[in-house]
């Protein structure tokens, strides 16, 4: 048998929960930033290939993602996602190691992006890179 007191207490509880929800929900939604629907580019032109020094790497923004472009000593180009798969730091090309290295926790990747040492759990994504009429062109992710 539900007494009037129990019924009113239950109604009060439901009302309070509803009121709290109506306050908390808009605040939480407000705190989450809106999604930006920016179209991802297919290619990115990076200028004359010969101007890019050998044995060095540089990070470019490709859409929303930072991409590390590497030119090895023998002149070959490689493009990898620049964000370490461990904890989000930006990696760098180390000519002395002939590898990609993350200064934050010492993670190491080979030039194909494979994680070869340290804590990174996954490889870096590879991007297409080619020379068209002497210009470097970065393409979409291969992996």
């Amino acid at each position, binding site marked *: 048998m539900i007494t009037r007191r129990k019924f009113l207490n239950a109604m009060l509880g439901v009302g309070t929960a509803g009121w709290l929800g109506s306050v908390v929900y808009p605040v939480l939604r407000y*705190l*989450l*930033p809106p999604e930006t629907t920016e179209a991802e580019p297919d290619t990115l032109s990076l200028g004359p290939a010969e101007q890019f020094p050998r044995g060095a*790497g540089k*990070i*470019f*923004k490709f859409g*929303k993602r*930072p991409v*590390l472009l590497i030119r090895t000593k023998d002149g070959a180009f490689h493009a990898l996602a*620049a964000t370490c798969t*461990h*904890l*989000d*730091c*930006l*990696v*760098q090309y180390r000519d002395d190691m002939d590898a990609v290295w*993350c*200064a*934050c*926790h*010492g993670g190491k990747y080979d030039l194909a992006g494979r*994680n070869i040492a*340290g*804590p*990174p*759990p996954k490889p870096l994504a590879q991007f297409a890179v080619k020379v068209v009429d002497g210009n470097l062109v970065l393409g979409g992710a291969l992996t």
Partner: protein
Amino acid sequence: MKDLVLSWLDERYKLSSFLEWARHKTVPVHRWTIFYYTGGVCLFLFLVQIATGILLLMYYRVGAESSYESVRFITSQVEFGWLMRSVHSWAANLLIFFVLAHMFSIFVMRSYRSPRELSWVTGCFLLGLMMAFGFSGYLLPWNELAYFATKVGTDIVGQLPVAGGWLLKLVRGGEEVTGATLSRFFGLHVAILPAAATCLIGVHLLFVQVQGMSHGEDAKAHMPFFPNFVLRDLALWLVALNVICVLAVFFPWELGLKADALKSAPAGIKPEWYFLSQYQLLKVMPARILLVPGELWGIFLFGAAGGAVLLLPFWDSLIRARGKERWLDVLGWGALAATAALTVWGHLS
């Protein structure tokens, strides 16, 4: 005139009852009495942070295009700006150190035991708040070190199962560490955390006041709180202020290079000393253990260790009931030694 003002105030606010209370309050005197002062030093350092933080706010301008420049302006153009910033940074580090020292002294004295369990719990939350202060304040100069420390620190939040992605966006104000993250951290650092810390310090002190200082019943002697203990406390605060000023003058805090979202993390990058043990643990964790990424195990370990510390007063009684009091010392000193070893290793590696 003084008497007239005092009696006018007393008539309205019963000041005499407060003085009467202060006159009767005592502090136990025993071989651990010196540890009582660590709490007072924490309070003093917090007040230094509030004061210097307000002064820094007069010139600081939040934003990816203005934060670094305004801090550089403070340290290079504003008179004594370098001093204010250095005092703020040094006092922040000393505050964490003294909160840890205060907590460890409470552990050694077993002062967290019944009826003071909630004093310990509020103290743990205060440590968490102080670390959050350190982490959020670290980003505000928007320099290279701060940028990567924030990237790593917030990514750890993002690794959490289920709500990780959602929390990451909430903390960063987007997918990446940008000016939006800076705005959030600024709000957290200058409004939310100070309000929360002030309330929690109030509750913590209220508990100490209501229950009295620990070991009062075992002590053979007591000293009056006012003026004996208060004057000793104030003398120590003066020493602390001098130490901070000497550190700030001879070892001013560097600003470093401005954050650049298209620059690799520089070699030798490391977090502040109080995050070094966690950093080193994440560094030496294998990529995967039983198919689970190493960093998740690391996060689980931090969480478990934090939970064990927070709930110490509650599981401590189980160990005591079995008459294994020595286990506590082994655990406590062992945890301290392991943390110190990881910190030194992180610093040297």
